[in-house]
């Protein structure tokens, strides 16, 4: 049983409320942190090796140290709770059941960054969590953790909650800032980066819910103790939201030393695949990251056991690896159709593209239409190459990462499952009646087909 830092107290009745949370040791990190110098907290976070949990995995301490600190200009901390990546629902769980953990982490982080007004931008669809968080903020305020002169240190801090209006794109930090300012949620063109010019043109740090929550154990236990958990540059614990064809879908806190195989098959985690089916493929880090066939998922191209951490999941680059992403772990069994799955994802990105820059606006819809055509048994061989060419022309050429996020799943599906696409084209009638099945995707030796 691995160590839990965030969900340690999740089973305790009433942990959602302030009384129980405080009794169980909540807000200790605020007491400790407010006695420290803000720069020392940043240093502590740096040494902990914590990496952004929203998807990109950028070192949090480093991000904090980039924050510009011009004289007389306000600085802001914004919590990105616009969790909308398909397959990802870890932040929801955290906010719904242990809301004070986020508030606590935000107070410490606000102090470290010098933010007197901090915001939580929450996904509009999480309507019921808004009430839970508002309540937690109110409780924290009544007990002197928020407001003026917190713990007599002279530090003022308020946290405000803002609901989004149902756009995936507003999870992109600059689109989030635009939306928070009351504008249309279009990503900004960078530079300038939010660390220099963010909310209301002031220096801003945008962090994921889980990242901010992880600040609490880092302060409580110290950076060294936190960094000891995990392996290499994947320190601490990571929340995984597991879904798809597994026996026990849900949220798991892992310490990033376990193997992918263990995560899927052990009873402590996903509990294997239902109905005796075989594993066909997996999207390990939320819908944007490359899908991997079973053989490359469990072992890297070098033949090592693949572990559940940033480095190991990315081993082999996009040619044979994937990404940790946001931790949205989607498992597909042998009955799943990769073409259909890719089409569903393409439809999502088409629907969510903001339409600001041309490659994403036009390309995402085009990819969806071609995938639909192949899925409906009307595809042609040239469509597969065309798809490859379209994704190639979107990737890297857009303002924000949504273009990449739309391109990668299509690219990976063609890269690893080209036979399945071709089978759809060659068997237009049969593909409507049955799935391609497992084929060779779990076979030990697999040479990926490069388009």
């Amino acid at each position, binding site marked *: 049983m691995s160590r839990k830092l965030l969900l340690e107290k999740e089973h305790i009745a009433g942990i959602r409320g302030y009384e129980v949370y405080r009794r169980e040791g909540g807000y200790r990190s605020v007491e400790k942190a407010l006695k420290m110098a803000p720069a020392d907290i940043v240093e502590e976070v740096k040494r902990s090796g914590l990496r952004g949990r929203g998807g990109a995995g950028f070192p949090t301490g480093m991000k904090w140290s980039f924050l510009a600190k011009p004289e007389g200009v306000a600085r802001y901390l914004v919590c990105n709770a616009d969790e909308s990546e398909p397959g990802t629902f870890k932040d929801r769980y955290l906010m719904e059941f242990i809301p004070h953990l986020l508030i606590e982490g935000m107070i410490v982080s606000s102090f470290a960054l010098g933010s007197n007004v901090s915001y939580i931008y929450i996904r509009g669809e999480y309507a019921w969590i808004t009430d839970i968080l508002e309540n937690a903020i109110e409780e924290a305020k009544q007990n002197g953790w928020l407001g003026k002169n917190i713990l007599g240190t002279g530090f003022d801090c308020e946290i405000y909650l803002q609901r989004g209006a149902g756009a995936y794109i507003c999870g992109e930090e600059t689109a989030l800032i635009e939306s928070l300012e009351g504008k249309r949620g279009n990503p900004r063109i960078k530079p300038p980066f939010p660390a220099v010019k963010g909310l209301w043109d002031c220096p801003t740090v945008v962090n994921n819910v889980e990242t901010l929550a992880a600040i609490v154990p880092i302060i409580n236990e110290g950076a060294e103790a936190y960094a000891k958990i995990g392996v290499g540059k994947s320190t601490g614990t990571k929340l995984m939201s597991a879904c798809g064809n597994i026996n026990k879908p849900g949220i798991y806190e892992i310490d990033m030393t376990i193997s992918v195989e263990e995560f899927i098959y052990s009873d402590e985690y996903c509990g294997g695949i239902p109905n005796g089916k075989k594993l066909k493929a997996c999207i390990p880090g939320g819908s944007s990251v490359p899908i991997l066939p079973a053989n490359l998922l469990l072992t890297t191209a070098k033949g090592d056991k693949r572990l559940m951490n940033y480095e190991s999941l990315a081993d082999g680059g996009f040619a044979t690896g994937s990404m940790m992403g946001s931790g949205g772990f989607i498992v597909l069994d042998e009955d799943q159709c990769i073409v259909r799955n890719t089409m569903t994802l393409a439809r999502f990105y088409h629907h969510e*593209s903001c*339409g*600001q820059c*041309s490659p994403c606006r036009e390309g995402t819809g*085009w990819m969806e239409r071609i995938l639909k055509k192949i899925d409906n048994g009307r595809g042609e061989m040239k469509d597969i190459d065309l798809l490859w060419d379209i994704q190639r*022309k979107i990737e890297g*050429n857009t303002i924000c990462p949504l273009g990449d996020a739309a391109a990668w799943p299509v690219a990976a599906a063609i890269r690893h499952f080209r036979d399945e696409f071709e089978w759809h084209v060659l068997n237009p009638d049969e593909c409507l009646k049955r799935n391609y099945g497992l084929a060779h995707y779990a076979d030990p030796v697999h040479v990926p087909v490069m388009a």
Partner: protein
Amino acid sequence: MADEIKTFKVTIDNITIDVPAGTTVLNAARKIGGDVAPPAMCYYSKLQGSGGKCRTCLVEIAAGSTVDPRPMPKLVASCRTTVMDGMIVKNITSEKVKDARAGVVEFLLLNHPLDCPICDQAGECHLQDLGYDHGKEGTRYEFPRRTFEKENFGPYIQLHMTRCILCYRCTYVADQLTDKRVHGILDRGEHAEISTYISRAVDNDFSGNMIDVCPVGALTDRTFRFKNRVWFTKPVDAHRDCETPGCCGKTTLWLRGEEVFRVTARKDEWGEVQSFDGKPGWICNTCRFDKKKTTDWIIEGVTKINRHSVISQGKYDNLVIPKETIKEVMNGRSPHLLMNIHDESEVNEPDIHLSKINGPAHSDNFNNHQP
């Protein structure tokens, strides 16, 4: 003491130029001119915040600066990237750029109706030029194109959203030039559309400038629609003493005989409104829509037109010959001459230089070869 503005050395397609710090790569390239300047469909130097969206101006940064000569991993939008000292930029010399740009052109044309034969913008359309210069022939798109209903923004402007490429320029005009904004973008992604809320008329002294900034035929002048092809009209520079505050009163009249078919702001070689005394030469709706007689204006002379422009075919004086940069781009080498058409053709008179003929070549010029 005034702050000294630093100058940076930047090399674009093998041509080095000194520009003030803070200049964008695109503007540095425009200073060099010719083919070295990347195309720009959404950037508009006179509109704050514009650019970065269309992705046609993507360039490769082969070296970031003298201090940090690492190349940039991705292509960057040259309109929103400022130069660094010692930066090396590749535009037309980069295969990556050419490939990506052809992709962007394809994306832009995906849902564009290609109704040029009935579009008022034809002949002065930036998308036409872009497609001609950087596009590939044929389309790989086989699905129905997106269409919208036409919409009138008041008595003067018509929106033909089907043609729009969502450059956002007109929304910046609405935001920055007019006093109350009633016009913006609705919906998102492929369905995003320029609109006034509940078709509210855009009733403002400067709304007509939206037409001038539109790179395609999405926003057209209702007083000019279908009246004439732009290349049949003759542009002349004119001015009047305009009393509207903020209007520069300097315009281009598009004439046929004595008839003023259309009035627009004066454009520079990049298709943007010219600046006068450092201020953008926006014009008011009175000048644009109401002053349609030559007697309303003091005519200065024929407008300078780029020789490559289709508009130049109606007039033969005052043509500007665009700067040729190809020799410099190729490090002093000239393109290899395959054949001299004069020498090969049975029709042409080799000793008659076509560019010396005052007007389009006519069979009278080649009388010797008439059967």
